[in-house]
């Protein structure tokens, strides 16, 4: 098996430079690559184009990169919950491209599956459709949407092995599998890194072929955005 392990997050992110287009897995603060985001903050790379469903909160997730004004453009489906984001957007420091969530997911999938474009009905007849090709199939209109083309994909998994195989836990899966498939270079941080052979081949969510670098992350905070509970009976 090909060994995909790198020593640490610094080695994993060493060649991410100013202006890079980066996909980042996660939904809200769930399943985000916390170690890699911290490393990008530390590196101070600027003018990043980030493709991620959300933009974090003020002091966590991609919000940390926004605080340092390292992001030039966000491509997301929902960017609420972030005052600094709003400030930069309104002041014109930050560009934002809003994309329907399913379109975002499917444009990642298209890249991973080697499909240059896909058809989706999402956004037909709305401002999302402006300038896009509309095509009717079986009486229904669809937009032609293109596969993403990202320099890096950074994903977070629960377990991974040295061959790069990944298993996600619960809804921390979200965008991670499609982005892992879509990156030209895919970096995976995992809570637990095991030897090749320790994961069940039938139960791997992302085959190692998609993963270029893997390392065991540390100090996961796993912050909860909306803690909702019911009282114990």
């Amino acid at each position: 098996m090909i060994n995909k392990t790198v020593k640490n997050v610094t080695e994993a992110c060493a060649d991410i430079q100013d202006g890079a287009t980066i996909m980042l897995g996660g939904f809200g603060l769930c399943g985000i690559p916390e170690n890699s985001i911290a490393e990008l903050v530390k590196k101070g790379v600027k003018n990043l184009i980030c493709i991620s469903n959300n933009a974090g909160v003020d002091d966590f997730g991609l919000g940390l990169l926004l605080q340092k004004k390292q992001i030039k453009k966000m491509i997301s489906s929902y960017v609420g919950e972030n005052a600094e984001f709003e400030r930069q957007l309104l002041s014109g420091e930050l560009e934002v491209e809003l994309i329907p969530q399913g379109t975002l997911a499917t444009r990642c999938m298209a890249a991973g599956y080697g499909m240059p474009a896909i058809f989706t009905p999402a956004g037909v007849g709305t401002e999302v459709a402006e300038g896009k090709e509309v095509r009717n199939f079986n009486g229904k209109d669809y937009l032609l949407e293109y596969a993403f083309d990202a320099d890096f994909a950074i994903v977070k998994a629960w377990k991974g092995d040295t061959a790069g195989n990944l298993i996600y836990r619960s809804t921390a899966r979200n965008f991670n599998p499609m982005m892992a498939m879509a990156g030209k270079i895919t970096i995976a941080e995992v809570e637990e890194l095991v030897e090749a052979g320790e994961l069940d081949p039938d139960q791997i969510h992302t085959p190692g072929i998609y993963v270029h670098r893997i390392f065991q992350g540390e100090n996961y905070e796993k912050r909860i955005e909306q803690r909702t509970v019911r009282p114990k009976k």
Partner: protein
Amino acid sequence: MALTKEQIAMRIAREIKNNTYVNLGIGIPTLVANYIPEGFNVVLQSENGILGMGPFPYEGEEDADLINAGKQTVTLLKGASIFDGATSFGMIRAQKVDLTILGAMEVSENGDIANWKIPGKMVKGMGGAMDLVASAKNIIVAMQQVNKHGESKLLPECTLPLTGVKCIKKIVTELGVYEVKDGAFHCLERAPGVSIDDIKKATAGKLIIDDNVPEMKF
């Protein structure tokens, strides 16, 4: 008396059939889960990647890795499954989800919906709403029929940027239940104590209402 949010949710819950898959949006739609009839097998889909979403966890049992599309901590029911976002929206596009319930700012008499953007205000994004309204075979909108200035949100044409076109077929508001067809809002039921005149005043779009339109019972 206009319906409370809980009553809107209760009324919508009556539209849910046994043995179906349902996607509930944020706000009033989320409340609908509390009124699904006992004994019904209704499987909730959450577009971040859950089928079989359960109630909130007991205090102290929250799992940061297990949230719904509103980023709230949730639980899984027995028989639940987890999947990625492409599969989730694939499932929605392929119309495997039987019913979608979501909120709206405006609906037009031809079924257009606007619920994501107010020009001049900070735009948070459409999330999965455009995918849901463009794909779902059966959508119910839960909304307030008049805004705080007393203006109707059931309009001849939406004034806000659209989320989807000609996709809404049923609306439940604080005043009534409406079917959207043939370019008009057809009032099917009125809220208890709400008069036909109240409804007429609160509907800017073309309204079709029978003098004997029944009153909802709770």
